[in-house]
């Protein structure tokens, strides 16, 4: 149980490649923090720096207030679950879990007690004497977690632990992981590229892009008030629609191309003609009765998911496609035109050049 402070952490490889820079996060005791981002964004590098598997080239890392930059992985009192589980193939499940405890020099009775408890909570009792290759993917995953739990570390680190499992098992283990976190009350740092996993597990999400932190916040912060266009498009599925346009002459509307314009009903910051991106989530658009909506959508195809229907199409005059998520089973032919509306609080405006959120206070 511990706090974890990442202070302007950075990693530059000897060749000059920078994997991460200026990453600052304060993780409090018992928090479940998820690092999320596309592949190559530096999230795994950050996790491996916390673990001590990568040297820290810039900044400072402290656990419980003590600087640990130069400590060996074994001296940091952390445990890690790897993407490929990294179970020792020549040892039984029991030996796998014992290994770290034996290295710590714990008395035998205590080791046995901890393993018995972990095996019970993870339902591994009957597999203790099997070798890893005799287990299924889900079981191996649980052994990897067991190996971390028995250590009773200050911080648990997870490196995409569910990405090698099939979708159904992933959902199930996600719930188990969440329950485990509640029961242990320990500090978890979790890396994933799957935004659904991040949203469902995290107390707070650190979303990264190109080695830098884009935004830190609760899942709902990120969903409702994305700080940048990148965050807006990364979180949520199907992802947020982005319509590129310019601030209108009255500074209260957005113009698309020559013809069409969308009146917003509030003032925009910035000069007329400034390029912006207007974002709206598919689930926040709804059909306007009687064609009274501000946005017309020419239907191209639909995805029927049962619980809801995603309609894909194009907005005449505006660049880029648009998707709408409508509740229930809906049927539209390609070419039909829908009139859509959206309440002002669900509109997100971003500077088209910098990607930074605009009008955060105006909305």
């Amino acid at each position, binding site marked *: 149980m511990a706090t974890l402070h990442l202070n302007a952490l950075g990693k530059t490889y000897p060749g000059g490649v920078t994997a991460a820079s200026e990453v600052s996060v304060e993780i409090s005791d018992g928090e479940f923090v998820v690092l999320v981002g596309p592949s190559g964004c530096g999230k795994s590098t950050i996790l491996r720096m916390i*673990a*001590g*598997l990568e040297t820290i080239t810039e900044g400072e890392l402290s656990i419980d207030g003590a600087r640990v930059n130069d400590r*060996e*992985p*074994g*001296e940091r009192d*952390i*445990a*890690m679950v*790897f*993407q*490929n589980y*990294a179970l*020792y*193939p*020549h040892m039984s499940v029991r030996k796998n879990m014992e*290994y*770290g405890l034996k*290295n*710590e020099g714990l008395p035998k009775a205590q080791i046995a007690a901890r393993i018995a408890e972990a095996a019970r909570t993870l339902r591994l009792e009957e597999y203790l004497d099997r*070798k890893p290759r005799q287990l299924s993917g889900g079981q191996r995953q649980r052994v990897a977690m067991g*190996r971390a739990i028995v*250590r009773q570390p200050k911080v648990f680190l997870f490196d995409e632990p569910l990405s090698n499992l099939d979708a159904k098992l992933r959902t199930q283990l996600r719930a188990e992981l969440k329950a485990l976190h509640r029961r242990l009350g320990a500090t978890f740092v979790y890396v994933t590229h799957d935004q659904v996993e991040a949203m469902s597990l995290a107390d707070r999400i650190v979303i990264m892009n190109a080695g830098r932190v884009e935004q830190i916040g609760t899942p709902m912060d990120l969903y409702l008030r994305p700080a940048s266009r990148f965050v807006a498009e990364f979180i949520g599925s199907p992802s947020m629609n982005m319509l590129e346009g310019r601030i209108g002459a009255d500074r209260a509307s957005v113009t698309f191309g020559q013809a069409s314009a969308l009146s917003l009903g509030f003032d925009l910051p910035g000069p007329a003609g400034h390029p912006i991106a207007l974002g709206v989530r598919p689930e926040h658009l709804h059909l306007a009765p009687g064609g009274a909506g501000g946005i017309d959508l020419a239907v191209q195809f639909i995805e029927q998911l049962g619980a809801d229907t995603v309609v894909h199409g194009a907005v005449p005059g505006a660049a880029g496609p648009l998707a709408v998520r409508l509740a229930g089973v809906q049927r539209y032919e390609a070419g039909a035109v829908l009139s859509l509306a959206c309440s002002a609080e669900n509109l997100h405006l971003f500077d088209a050049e910098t990607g930074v959120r605009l009008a955060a206070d105006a909305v």
Partner: protein
Amino acid sequence: MQKRVIFRSRSLPYLLVLPQIAVTLVFFFWPSYQALESSFFIEDAFGFSREWVGLRNYRDLFADPGYLRSFRTTLVFGLSVTALALGTSLGLAVAANRVLRAAQSYRTLLIWPYAVAPALAGVIWYFLMNPSMGIVAYWLKGLGVEWNHYVNGNQALILVVVAAAWKQISYNFLFFLAGLQSIPKSLIEAAAIDRAGPIRRFWTITMPLLSPTTFFLLVVNLVYAFFDTFALIHATTNGGPADATSVLVFRVYNTGFIGQDYGSSAAQSVVLMALVIGMTFIQFRYVERKVTY
């Protein structure tokens, strides 16, 4: 998918394996049979007559203290070569495995000694350690070691052990390096997080995972040292001084071609054959049981 081929004609499959069988029969079974047969006879040096003597050649052999000493020499030689070759190559492989840049060129450079013929390898070391002009002998003299393998039997044995091991190191190195590289890095990292230091990691994770490679190389090296080092010894010490480096394979040659005692030489060959068969048998029994994880 059908893996087994079914032939329509009965004779074709036999015809297809015939060349292989013919080669085996002519070059392996026939000489082996000849050796076995000769070992029951005493022959005159010119091959004009021979006399059936039953097991006398074998009785004489095992009553000969020189032959029994050869057994001991072979054992010491074989185990030393194997230990030295495996130990050194493992050390080199572990070191090379840590090198990321130019790993390919290291590997290429280190394989070179394997391309050197055994006799030549022997000669190289013979010159290096020659008491009157060898550089290594000169260095040893500087350290206060009086090196003369012409006189000192133990030093002669050390010379052939070093030369034989040196030649085998590159071969072992390649296998060890491949074995080390097939161990997932995350296992070593997991062990590091589990508070195991580098040495403990090596013995508890790396070595067990490397055991199939190690066992394979152990067998290869033992067979090499026991049965494949004739040329090397012939070119360097010629079995001497005073039989100190006369291993079993060398003795077979010496008895047969120098001493012209074909019967005893054949009997020695049969003993060697029995040894090879025994070792192969142990290898296959053992390989399937213990060295898996």
